[in-house]
């Protein structure tokens, strides 16, 4: 019993140290759920989110907000990676069910770099776009070249 209890305590404290640490050591700055990051600049950073259907070579804009509750739309617009991937999986499965053999969905997500929100050189970077913004002012949390239908299969 004591051993079990000690294991529980060690596991609990270990998780409470490891989960936030994994956020800081990991790549995904936009999923702060277990990091105890309150009032963070990430929450204030704005993102431009475009989901693009490239199944037939052409680029057609996908509009998830038309079918999802706005709470999911908000999480997508905050570049919450698990939500982007879950939506992509659903979209790709539906396309396959509809007969598409190789559906292709790409997430073109550009966000203000949370670490440089206060930097005057980065003001208006999102509006200016990646091409004209100073290097480091914007980030792409998900590789836009990645076909999410292949990743999440």
């Amino acid at each position, binding site marked *: 019993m*004591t051993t079990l*209890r*000690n294991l529980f*305590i*060690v596991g*609990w*404290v270990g998780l*409470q*140290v490891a989960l*936030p640490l994994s956020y800081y050591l990991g790549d995904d700055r936009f999923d*702060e*759920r*277990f*990091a*105890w*990051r*309150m*009032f*963070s*600049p990430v929450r*204030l950073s704005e993102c431009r989110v475009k989901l693009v259907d490239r199944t037939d070579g052409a680029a057609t804009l996908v509009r998830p907000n*038309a*079918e*999802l*509750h*706005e*709470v*999911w739309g908000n*999480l997508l617009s905050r570049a*919450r990676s*698990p*939500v982007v*991937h*879950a*939506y992509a999986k*659903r979209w790709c499965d539906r396309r396959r069910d509809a007969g598409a053999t190789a559906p292709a969905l790409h997430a073109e997500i550009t966000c203000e770099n*949370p*670490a*440089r*929100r*206060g930097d005057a050189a980065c003001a208006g970077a999102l509006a200016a776009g990646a091409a004209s913004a100073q290097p480091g002012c914007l980030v792409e949390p998900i590789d836009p070249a990645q076909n999410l239908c292949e990743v999440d299969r």
Partner: protein
Amino acid sequence: MSAYFDAFEVSARRLAVLRVLFFGLLAFDLWTTFLPHAPRFGAGGFNVSQVPALDAWLPLPTPSVVGALYIVGGLAAFCAALGVGVRLALPVVAACYSGVYFWSQSDSYQHHYLVSLLLVLLCFVPHGAWRGDATHVRSWAMRLVYVQVSLMYAWTAATKCDAAWLDGSTMNSLLSCEARLHVQAFGNALGWSEAGALRAVSASIMLGEFAAAALVLYAPWWTIGLFVIPFFHAGVEYLDFDIELFSYYMFVLLFALLLPQRWLDRGWDAVAQRLGGPREHVLRALNGDSVPPGVSTPWLIAGATALAAFALLRALPVDRADIGAGLAAAFALGVLAPWNRGAGSVRTSSAIALIAGSGLCLAGLARSEALYDYHRQWGGYLRRSGDVEGAIARYESANAIQHDAPARHVALARLQLKRGEAAAAALNVDEALRRDEAAVSQANAHARSASAGAQDHLELGRAHVRLADTLKFATEVFPAAGRSDDVAALQRKREGHIGDARSAFEANVRSDPACGAGRGELARLRGAGDGADR
């Protein structure tokens, strides 16, 4: 390490304070804040859990199941606060609250995560300790509660050790206009610029949170913590951040966890002196010889209580109220557990608490803003997703709950008009006009009172705009319904209300030149030509 957790002693009185305050707040929170959010769960057949790897095995949450869990979780929290059936109530609250939290990322508030963790830990506190079997009890789980709170403060401080926080820019973005004025005044008093004051405030918050992490862990410092740490949470409320009841949870937790034992004992004795006698008298009357012993008596009491809880919660105007009512009845049977006890040993006070909790839930919610929001938000989602029938049903429920105040009659009428039901739409517009006019009269009275402030003028302006929008819609609906109302007169009336709205917003800006929200409302009026359709 083992000794650090094993040797931790907590007084039964501290646990009683924690039980009453924390679970009382939780019951209120689940019923009034969480329940209106139930309709978002599983909407559009989409969900992502907090552990996406489990999604393939987890069923899709539904508003009825999530709503039921919030209702029963609230009832269990209410019982736990009163010390009724704590052994069962704690795991039930933990399962309902934490279960829903981990079920869906649509609930992403960090304090919901914290409360979920604390609820799990509190299940491991020896249940006799909640009953007050001994004056002090050793509890490794309570030690872990302190460690958890400390870790939260430590991490939230560590996350602020970066330039984006320390240069004050994050704080600058978070401040409301009113809060900014206070920061400026604080800086001026010390001869600092606004940017300097923001940097100082940001750095002191970071340092204060590190200090909080230490103060919570070390018992001799609890008194300091009790006076210092709540300031952060008071500041959060002052800055008007939308984080639901987080600050209140922290006030309650810090009070219960950090109050020095001698103060707690002194306060306890003072309260016991006043309330102890009557409480004992009531409990003796309820639980003593007043229940006639007999084999069937405990079953009768438990059965009647379960039935009463079911009947009360079944009447709650939510989707599939029977699920929540059924779970509540099962919980009542579990708390009274007649199969575990000797004849006549069912505590009448527990039965009364269960019925009172169910009744409070029904009476408190039946005509509340919370249930109005539940139906209104659900209706809004259904409307946006093209489910006209479903949206109409939800808006009708919302309008029935919002007794006499402006509700969703115009939104309902728009849907009815879309379905070609112009006569029904016109009736709803009539009702909307009646309520909007009453709201304008009420707001007018407030704005003309001697104590009227900027907010009163703002509310009056918004009431005029709402009425103007309804009148605009009336000019479409009444002719479509074949009514002979004078459209030109309706338009003139509408223009009058737009003018009155403008005057009210200007009065708001005059009353509060720095931060008056009337400025934005005036810009919106200009942007819409004369009035915005809302």
